[in-house]
């Protein structure tokens, strides 16, 4: 395990210059929700609600463990939610209620 001072000196997304495995030339077809998430990032940027640098720092703020376990767009949407809470544009309660509603709408196959 790295020492805490090493973690402090290098935040989890700051990868330049580290040693790592050979490049695997992986590519996957982007899923529909991932593409919507990408479009959401652009639209939030157009409206000056969340810019690219805020998004990057929002991912960084998720911490090393989530960054290592969540996929690319999973990190993005979690970061957007946190940033929107911090800016007072959404509340955690808003999101929890809406997620339940969406889940109920999709969960049992009936709409």
């Amino acid at each position, binding site marked *: 395990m790295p020492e805490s001072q090493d973690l402090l000196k290098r935040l989890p997304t700051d990868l330049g210059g580290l040693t790592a495995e050979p490049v695997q030339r992986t590519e996957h077809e*982007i899923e529909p929700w991932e593409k919507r998430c990408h479009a959401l990032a652009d639209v939030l940027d*157009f409206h000056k609600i969340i810019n690219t640098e805020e998004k990057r720092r929002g991912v960084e703020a998720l911490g090393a463990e989530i960054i290592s376990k969540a996929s690319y767009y999973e990190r993005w949407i979690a970061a957007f939610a946190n940033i929107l809470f911090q800016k007072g544009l959404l509340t955690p309660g808003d999101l929890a209620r809406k997620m339940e509603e969406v889940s109920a709408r999709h969960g049992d196959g009936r709409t």
Partner: protein
Amino acid sequence: MQPHGHEHPDIPEPEDKPPGYYEIMEIAVRELLIEKKLIGPDEIRRQIEVLDSRTPALGARVVARAWIDPAFRVRLLRNGRAACEELGISFYDDTQLIVLENTAAVHNLVVCTLCSCYPRPVLGLPPDWYKLKPYRARAVREPRAVLAEFGTFISDDVEVRVSDSTAMVRYLVLPQRPPGTEGMSEQQLADLVTRDAMIGVTTVRH
């Protein structure tokens, strides 16, 4: 299942399997932002159309034009964004584009060590390997070894120059025009230019 027509008035959501946790979060955030009128109801769908319209074929057109039009090449190297806009390629974000020219003396390679910044307006979305740790970590430390993993071997007397992208400044590599292409049309030249050559991990072959 809905019958599949040619119109998609609503943003498609998969109907055959229930959405996962993060997809539910994405749907919920989007719907809340629309309800609160922070974004328009149609903006995500329209931006998806913009994203779908961006592929490496646009960058390939830019490269082919630079190969056949020396004055365009000069403008492209001076201001990448303005030269792309001249060809009708709009920039939907605030990023600047710096075009890096490969020569007999210099080979350029583009990376984003901090995240995944990429010249999306001209190349579309980046490949997964561009976003993953091995490429981001090693491209700045041992670029020749990384290039070799792509089957690209740069002679020792050629400088390998690595550019690290930022939120505001993106890079596109202008590859060297391969020999034996003197008689080719602009479109034929564009067809030779690959995404990976414009990232700098490969060269253009004929």
